[in-house]
């Protein structure tokens, strides 16, 4: 498994996937405080032209909260790009047949699935917290992060949501034949969970609940109300991995 993890690292590094994702997440990390910082200037620039239309702009107070709100608007874009770039991680190997020599050398299929999934989790963790850290650093420099309630808990919730998405991606990849199928499957699962979340009965017991970080920051929700969503994400991710292992054991390479 260690050898396969090393191979994954080399692949991410040499195919440029890591570089692209690093750039995206660093950019997203900078973008949230930058947009918050630029908001007064933007409003001032637009105020003259807006005055002509009858809209009156008032002075805006910008603080860390504006930046964090922007962070939770931007980070889904990062997750989508992460899924897009990782959708061919398994299927590319099936299509080229590169896993055949690996399996016939005696490496178990579970080690392959385990290494790939672990790498997805690891990559998401590093990229997400890097993005979070950059936003945190800028916010601390310009304003005060203390006004945001349960900041790290809210951050951890979205990180867990990303882990759940990565687990779904690994599960779909275990049986899908192309990256398009992986994207449809993963996107379908995320959309399904979102639709189910529209029903108030299910709302608190779905991983989609973990995306609502801003409610925690503003104190509109307490961390306790996220228990159902956390449990659902952990259980569903574990089930995805177990089912993925069964599918991957049987799939034709």
């Amino acid at each position, binding site marked *: 498994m*260690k*050898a*396969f993890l*090393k*191979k994954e690292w*080399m*692949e991410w590094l*040499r*195919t440029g996937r890591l570089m692209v994702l690093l750039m995206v997440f660093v950019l997203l990390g900078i973008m949230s405080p930058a947009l918050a910082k630029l908001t007064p200037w933007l409003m001032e620039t637009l105020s003259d032209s807006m005055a002509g239309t009858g809209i009156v702009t008032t002075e805006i107070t910008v603080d860390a909260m504006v930046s964090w709100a922007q962070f939770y608007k931007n980070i889904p874009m990062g997750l989508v790009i992460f899924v897009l770039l990782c959708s061919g991680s398994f299927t590319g190997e099936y299509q*080229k*047949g*590169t896993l*055949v*020599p*690996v*399996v*016939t*050398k*005696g*490496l*178990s*299929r*579970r080690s392959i699935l385990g290494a790939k999934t672990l790498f997805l989790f690891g990559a998401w963790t590093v990229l997400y917290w890097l993005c979070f850290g950059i936003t945190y650093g800028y916010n601390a420099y310009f304003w005060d992060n203390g006004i945001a309630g349960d900041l790290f808990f809210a951050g951890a919730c979205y990180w867990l949501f990303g882990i759940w998405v990565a687990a779904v991606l690994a599960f779909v990849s275990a049986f899908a034949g192309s990256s398009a199928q992986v994207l449809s499957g993963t996107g379908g699962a995320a959309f399904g969970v979102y639709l189910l979340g529209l029903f108030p009965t299910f709302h608190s017991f779905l991983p989609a609940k973990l995306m609502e970080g801003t409610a925690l920051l503003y104190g509109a929700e307490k961390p306790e109300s996220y228990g159902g969503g956390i449990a659902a994400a952990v259980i569903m991710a574990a089930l995805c991995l177990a089912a993925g292992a069964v599918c991957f*054991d*049987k799939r*034709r*390479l």
Partner: protein
Amino acid sequence: MAGRGTGRNILTLSHVEKRFGEKQVLRDVDFSVPEHTVFGFVGKNGAGKTTAMKLVLGLLSCSSGEIQVNGMPVRYGNTPTNRFVGYLPDVPEFYSYMSPAEYLQFCGEIAGMEKKEIRERTGELLHLVGLEKEKGRIKGFSRGMKQRLGIAQALFGRPKLLICDEPTSALDPAGRKELLDILVSAKEQATVLFSTHILSDVEHICDQVAFLHNGEIVLQGSVEEVKKSRKAAKTELETERPEDARLLLSQFPFLKMAGQGSLLLEDTGRLWEILHFIAEKKLPVLRVERQEAALEDLFLEIIGK
């Protein structure tokens, strides 16, 4: 070919059948491969050779029957028997962002070999396949270079059974010869099972051969036994004057015309009748030659062409 192995079988297929839905690809395939032999697996495209090899590797599941490698049953999915096997696919694919040395090191690591052994074996095998000077990435490799790297990775873990799927089909004559030499040299340490439809390769290096046609083993044995078993040797007879050949043809209708003044006799038992007639009529004859059956003839006979 020299050597017939140790008598112990490294690979045994017992009444193996494989169906893909309604389509039956392999029917009651039953054969054994003795240790330290080169075993040719012959059949036209689509005969089921690759399917049979994938079953041996546990990459496909048998519909019925059993396969044993080194005395252990093959299991679909994660078969422990793969630690005895080296496999060269028909179109070997590698991680294109690696160099050949990096790829071989990766093979050694996943096989759980020691670092020192990996380093030594990498150098040894790159030298064997003539890729020791290739430091660039596999991305720019030709088909022949990939085939050579494929054989190096297949031999990396010193397998007891080396399975090669059509290893020479896409190579030029020089590349083919090099690869066949490697396979013959591999026989010292391993048993080689290779599928092909190039019969001259089989005649050159194989000890044993099995013919697969429409999913069935229709003929198997040592190359010599197989050549003797089916078609008896033919006799070719060439007369000096073409009209004498026509005279012989009218006299002995079982003869076949094989060219200007040339006749072919399949039933060699009746040669004396013809020779008697030639002597009686004093017909000038250039040549009477016995022709041994070639694998190519056998193959064409088997596939009904």
